[in-house]
């Protein structure tokens, strides 16, 4: 899972709820009618909004003004806050901390699946799920910062999951040195991520920390032989669709070089 840099520029006034995985989206209506949507992160939200905006333009529908306002309530990243044992065939087992994808809702139950076991779908009580709400407001190109859901935070979470799987394999194969380095890096990343998510960092510290996180992720991915993510100076991931080939190449070169330097430092 790689994250894209983003900015908001869309229109429509509504509450909305969406599972972008299945592309099930009720058309957002302008006006008082409201829908509640679940989104699995700001990226899917934006992808959906952009598709929506493009769609409108193509359909020659109501003209979309770049300076229009988006106001809405988005519920991001539903989480299980308690263990749930299924009591019937249709019901899904939940473990505390599971991220769930909600497809539908009825009478106090949700139907969906967990990130851990995507193939298995079932129902579970809504009371066992915490819905992190975020209000999204934006005018034109202004970026909205929701600290817990910064693309970098999402990326850190995904990287950690990938790394820990590898870390366990290193343990079983008895590759002690790499096991220990990876352990240290994972702990650092976990700590940095907590700091970012706490929302208590002043802006400058946040910028510095983001760079540290990006550098650590890149270094770790490199020594594990994983793909190198291409970023800008601030540590945001570059979108290959929107960045010129030359800029992409330069950014890749710079990233590669700084990882090499770091590796040399570690050796010395």
């Amino acid at each position, binding site marked *: 899972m790689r994250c894209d840099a983003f900015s908001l520029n869309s229109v429509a006034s509504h509450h909305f709820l969406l599972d972008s995985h299945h592309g*099930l989206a009720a058309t957002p209506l302008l006006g008082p009618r*409201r*829908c509640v949507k679940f989104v699995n992160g700001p990226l899917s939200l934006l992808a959906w909004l952009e598709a929506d905006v493009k769609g409108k333009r193509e359909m020659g529908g109501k003209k979309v003004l770049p300076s229009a306002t988006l106001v809405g309530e988005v519920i991001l990243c539903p989480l299980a806050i308690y*263990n749930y044992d299924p009591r*019937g065939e249709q019901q899904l087992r939940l473990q*505390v901390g599971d*991220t769930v994808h909600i497809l539908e809702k009825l009478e106090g139950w949700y139907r969906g699946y967990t990130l851990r076991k995507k193939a298995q779908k079932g*129902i579970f009580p809504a009371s066992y799920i915490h819905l992190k709400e975020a209000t999204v407001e934006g005018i034109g190109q202004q970026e909205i910062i929701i600290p817990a859901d910064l693309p970098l935070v999402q990326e850190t979470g995904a990287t950690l999951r990938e790394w820990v799987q590898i870390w366990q394999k290193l343990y079983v194969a*008895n590759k002690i040195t790499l096991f220990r380095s990876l352990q240290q890096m994972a702990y650092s990343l976990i700590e940095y991520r907590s700091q970012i998510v*706490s929302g208590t960092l002043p802006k400058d510290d946040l910028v510095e920390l983001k760079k540290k996180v990006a550098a650590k992720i890149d270094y770790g991915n490199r020594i594990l032989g994983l793909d190198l993510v291409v970023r800008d100076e601030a540590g945001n991931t570059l979108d290959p669709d929107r960045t010129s080939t030359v800029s992409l190449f330069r950014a890749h070169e710079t990233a590669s070089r700084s990882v090499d330097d770091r590796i040399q430092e570690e050796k010395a």
Partner: protein
Amino acid sequence: MQVVREQIMRALSLKPNSLDQFKSRLQNLSYTEILKIRQSERMNQEDFQSRPILELREKIQPEIMELIKQQRLNRLCEGTCFRKISSRRRQDKFWYCRLSPNHKVLHYGDLEESPQGEVPHDSLQDKLPVADIKAVITGKDCPHMKEKGALKQNKEVLELAFSVLYESDEYLNFIAPDKHEYCVWTDGLNALLGKEMTSDYTKTDMDTLLSMEMKLRLLDLENIQIPEAPPPIPKEPSNYDFVYDCN
């Protein structure tokens, strides 16, 4: 604002007796202090005793134990060089022991000198089918530790000694090169016998692996309150025709 609130809360909780004391306590709780306190709290978060977290830990524990078992068996398959301490001769002899890849046979044999790397099993003369192993014995109960001689006096050796009992009265005696190998081999042999692994290293490995897994599972739950008791379960839905709720 959150930090300011936290500073005030913490200063108040120290129950200052006057406004001046309050001010001085506030000063001690500078921004960096708060960050440090939060960090150490985060580190200790898994000691947090809430019920679902404890349940989750118990659930994951067997999965982690399986990883440890695989690691031990892999190590046994790589094999280890052991010393044969003889009370008569001055020089120690070496021998090598390793488990076959299918975990069914222990190959072992004498070596002329200490090997540089792994020794392939075809160069090891003897073998012992795992199915014949009856028990693993450790420390002073080992037959080679009961022999008279200088050996018995050496406490260190006692802690590294283990034996495998096969047939009804035959023993294969080991003296591990260090504590780590001792733990790996006794754990591995116990695992082969279907018994619990009980070495100190199993405990530390379990802690390390389990705590990382728990941190990962609970990553997103940081600022969220986990309920004390299980939330109420609604009655079953009247029908299973779930639809989008747009109201």
